[in-house]
């Protein structure tokens, strides 16, 4: 239970950064921290005490069958996809920040207030 609460604390760190920072780059980094916290939590759901990783090797298998319990591989495959999507989101946010900087000459969100023109 403690590890899940710690994951939630990490998520709150990201939320704090998004809500209080003024720099666009720091906001993007905070969004990254939120994503990492979610990934970590889903990976921790799959954890099983005493189990091995879900890859068959010569050391842990006998005639193509695993010798001991393995952790759940589904969340790990899911998180790999999640990481890819996060990468795309980060690239898009960075490109948008560059465009905003081009227009307003600043990354400070309190100075980016004109909506049109």
């Amino acid at each position, binding site marked *: 239970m403690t590890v899940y609460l710690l994951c939630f604390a990490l998520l709150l760190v990201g939320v704090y950064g998004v809500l209080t920072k003024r720099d666009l780059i720091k906001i993007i980094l905070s969004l990254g921290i939120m994503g990492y916290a979610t990934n970590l939590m889903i990976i921790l759901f799959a954890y099983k005490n005493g189990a091995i*990783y879900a*890859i*068959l*090797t*010569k050391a842990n*298998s006998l005639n*193509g069958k695993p010798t001991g319990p393995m952790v759940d591989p589904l969340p790990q495959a899911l998180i*790999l996809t999640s*990481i*890819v999507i996060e*990468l795309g989101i980060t*690239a898009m946010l*960075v*490109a948008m920040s*560059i465009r905003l*900087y*081009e*227009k307003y*000459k600043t990354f400070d969100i309190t100075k980016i207030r004109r909506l049109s023109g």
Partner: protein
Amino acid sequence: MKQNEGMTLIVKTVTRVSVWLIFLYGIYIILHGHLTPGGGFAGGVVLALGFLNIMLAYGRKYVEGWLNIKLMKDIESSMATLFLALGILGMSFGGGLLANFLSKGELFRLLSSGTIPILNILIGTKVSMALFVVIYSLAVLHIVKGGEK
């Protein structure tokens, strides 16, 4: 010595040697995707970081001459199509989208597990090209100086 674009001579020389090892490692991770941790995405990221290494050490101009960015973009797009084609081949020969239709081979051999190594190679190429093109286009974005107030 004339200091042109990129970093110093030391960085360039070290990069010239180490970048091939980085590429080799990425290809190793892609080819062993069905046997060990890793696979297409992880190996592709390693390859893309190798390209990024060249770009950081030698500068943008050199990379433009050395690599064909347009071709990389085309390869990246065609990999998605090939992935789909392999999936449809699985549909016609194996009985479902992306189903295996090749021999599964012997366990723990490099040439085993049917179509998965081919898919890994496709994904690895796609990820490496796509990630490098993304980084490259972020780097060459032209920031107009002295815009409106």
